C-alpha cells in the first residue's frame, strides 16, 4: 500500500530535482545576491539593501545597454514579424513550388547554424577589407566603406543586422506552417470574388494566422531582451561600450569585474522584463490549447 502511495513521486523525482536545482533555486539565489555587495575575487560579502539597483539605474552603462536592447527589439519586430509574414505569404503564393521550397529552405538555414559560426563569419564580412566593403565598392558606394564593427555608430546596427539575417527565415517558417493550415477554399473563394492578392493577404491571411503572429511577436521580443551570444562574439560590447546590452554588462560585471551583487541586480531586471513576456507567451499557448 505504501509502495502505491509513493510510486507517483518516485517517477517525478529525477526531473523534479533537476528542475529545482538548476531552474528554480538559482532564481531565489539571484534575488538574494542582488542585495549584497559581493566581490568574487576577495570573497567579501555585505548586505547593502537596494544600493545595487540604485547605482545600476544611475549608471551610464545601463542607459546605453537598455537603449540597445530596445533597438534590438524594434528592429527584430519589423523583420521577424512584419517582413517575415509578408515573405511567407509571397512564398506560399508562388506558382513554382520547387523554387519556393528552395527559397524557404535557404532562408531557414541560418537559423540552424550556431551563433558562434555566424558571428565569426560576419566578423570577416564586416572587416575593412571584407566582403561587405568590397560589395559597396563594386556598387560605386566606396565612400561608405568602413570597419563596421569597429565604429561606434555602426557596431550595434551591424550586429542587429546579423540577427535579422539569421532569424527572419525562422519566423517565416512558422508563418508558412500557419498559412498552410488555412483551408484552400477560403483563398479560392476570395479569388472568385475578385479580391486582389494584397486584399486577400490583409483581410484573410493575417486574421487567420493571428495566433502565430502573437507567438512570434513574443519570442522576438524576449529574444531581443535576452540577446547575448552575437554581441559577445562580434564586439564584446565595444567599441567604447557602444554595443553593450543588458546581458553583456551583467556578464562583464560578474565574471570580469567580480562584482556579483551588482551583476545579479542586472540579472533580476532582465528576469523581470523577460518574465512579463514569457508569461504572455505561456498564456497565449494555454489559450490555444
Amino acid at each position, binding site marked *: 500500500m505504501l509502495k502505491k502511495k509513493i510510486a*507517483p513521486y518516485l*517517477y*517525478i523525482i*529525477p*526531473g*523534479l530535482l*533537476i*528542475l529545482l536545482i*538548476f*531552474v528554480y*533555486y*538559482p*532564481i531565489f*539565489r*539571484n534575488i538574494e545576491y542582488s542585495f549584497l555587495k559581493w566581490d568574487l575575487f576577495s570573497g567579501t560579502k555585505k548586505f547593502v539593501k537596494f544600493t545595487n539597483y540604485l547605482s545600476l539605474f544611475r549608471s551610464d552603462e545601463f542607459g546605453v545597454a537598455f537603449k540597445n536592447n530596445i533597438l534590438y527589439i524594434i528592429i527584430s519586430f519589423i523583420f521577424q514579424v512584419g517582413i517575415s509574414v509578408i515573405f511567407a505569404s*509571397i512564398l506560399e*503564393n508562388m506558382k513554382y513550388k520547387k523554387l519556393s521550397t528552395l527559397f524557404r529552405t*535557404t532562408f531557414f538555414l541560418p537559423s*540552424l*547554424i*550556431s*551563433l*558562434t559560426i555566424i558571428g*565569426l563569419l560576419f566578423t*570577416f*564580412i564586416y572587416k575593412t577589407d*571584407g*566582403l561587405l566593403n568590397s560589395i559597396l565598392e563594386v556598387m560605386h558606394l566606396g565612400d561608405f566603406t568602413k570597419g563596421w564593427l569597429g565604429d561606434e555608430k555602426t557596431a550595434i546596427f551591424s550586429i542587429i543586422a546579423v540577427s535579422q*539575417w539569421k532569424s527572419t527565415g*525562422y519566423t517565416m*517558417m512558422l508563418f508558412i506552417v500557419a498559412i498552410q493550415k488555412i483551408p484552400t477554399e*477560403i483563398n479560392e*473563394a476570395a479569388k472568385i*470574388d*475578385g479580391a*486582389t*492578392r494584397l*486584399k486577400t493577404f490583409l*483581410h*484573410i491571411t493575417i486574421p*487567420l494566422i493571428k495566433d502565430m503572429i502573437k*507567438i*512570434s511577436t*513574443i*519570442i522576438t521580443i524576449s529574444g531581443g531582451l*535576452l540577446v547575448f*551570444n552575437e554581441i*559577445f*562574439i562580434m564586439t564584446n560590447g565595444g567599441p567604447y561600450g557602444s554595443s553593450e546590452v543588458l*546581458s553583456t554588462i*551583467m556578464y562583464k560585471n*560578474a*565574471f570580469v569585474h567580480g562584482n556579483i551583487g551588482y*551583476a545579479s541586480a542586472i*540579472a533580476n531586471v532582465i*528576469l523581470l522584463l523577460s518574465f512579463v513576456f*514569457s*508569461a504572455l*507567451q*505561456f498564456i497565449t499557448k494555454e489559450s490555444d490549447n
Partner: protein
Amino acid sequence: MKSRYNKSIRYLNYNGMKEITDNLGSMVAKLIIVLFFMIIAGPLIWMVVSSFKSSNEIFSNIWGLPGQWLFTNYVEAWNTGISKYFINSVFVTVCTIILTLIICSLYAYSITIFDFKGKKCFFILALCGMMFSPIVSMIPLYQEVQVLGLYNRRIALILIYSAYQMSLSFLLIQSFFKSIDKAYLDAAKIDGCNNLITLIYIFIPMSKPIFVTSAVLTGFYSWNEFSFALIFVKDSALKTIPSGLLAFQGEMHAEWGVLLAGLVISAVPIIMFFVFAQKYFIAGISAGGVKG
C-alpha cells in the same frame, strides 16, 4: 471561420486596375524575394568557397573561386582542434537528449496515470520552467556548479541543458500521453505488467513521433548552446563546438582559410541533421514556439 470570412469579404471589391496592380505587385514581390535570397545565400556560399583559399587569397581575391583548392585547410582545422570539440559536442548532445527524454517520460507518465497529492502543483512546476531564461541565472548557476564540483566538466552542461529543455519536452510528451487510451493500461495490468513495464513497452513505443520531435529540439539546443559552454567549461579539451570555435579562432591567429574550414565543418552536421529530421523539427518549433 465562415463568419470571419464573410466579414472579410465585405472589404474586397473589384476594380479595373486590379489585374495590373496585382501583376506589378507580384513582380516587385518576386524581385525582393530574389534579393533576399542573395543576401542569405551569399555569405554562406562565400564561407564555403573561401574555406578552400589561402589566408592571403581570401582578401586579395575576395570574389573569385580559389586559384588552388586547398583541401588541406579542412585537414588542418580538423587536426588542430575541431575534432575534439566535435566529439565533445556529440557526447554532450547525445547525453542531454537521453537524460531529457528519460526524466520527461517518467515525469509525464506519473502525471498522466496517477492521482496523487500535489499533482497539479508538480504539473505547473514542470511547465513553468519554460518561463525562465537560462542566461538570467548564469551567476547563481556558476556558484552552484562550483559547489557541486561540476565546474569544468561536461556533465554540468548536460544537466543544465536538460533542466532548461525539460519543460518543452514535458509539454509535448505529456499532451501525447494524455491522448493514449487508458484501456491499454488496464490490459497491461491484467497481463501482469507493472507500471514501469507499461511505460517502456506500451507508452513510449506508441509515442515515437513525439519523442523524435523532443529529441530533435533538445539536440538542436544543446548542439548550439554557447553561453554556458563558454563559462562552465574552461579546459579546451572539453569544450563543445560553439565555445571551442572561439578558442580555435585564438589559436589560428591569421590562418583565415583554416578558420573558415573549421566553421564549415561545424555547421554541416546540424544542417544534415535538419535535412533528415525536417518534418519533426518543424512540427516541434511550431508547436513549442521556441527559438534557437
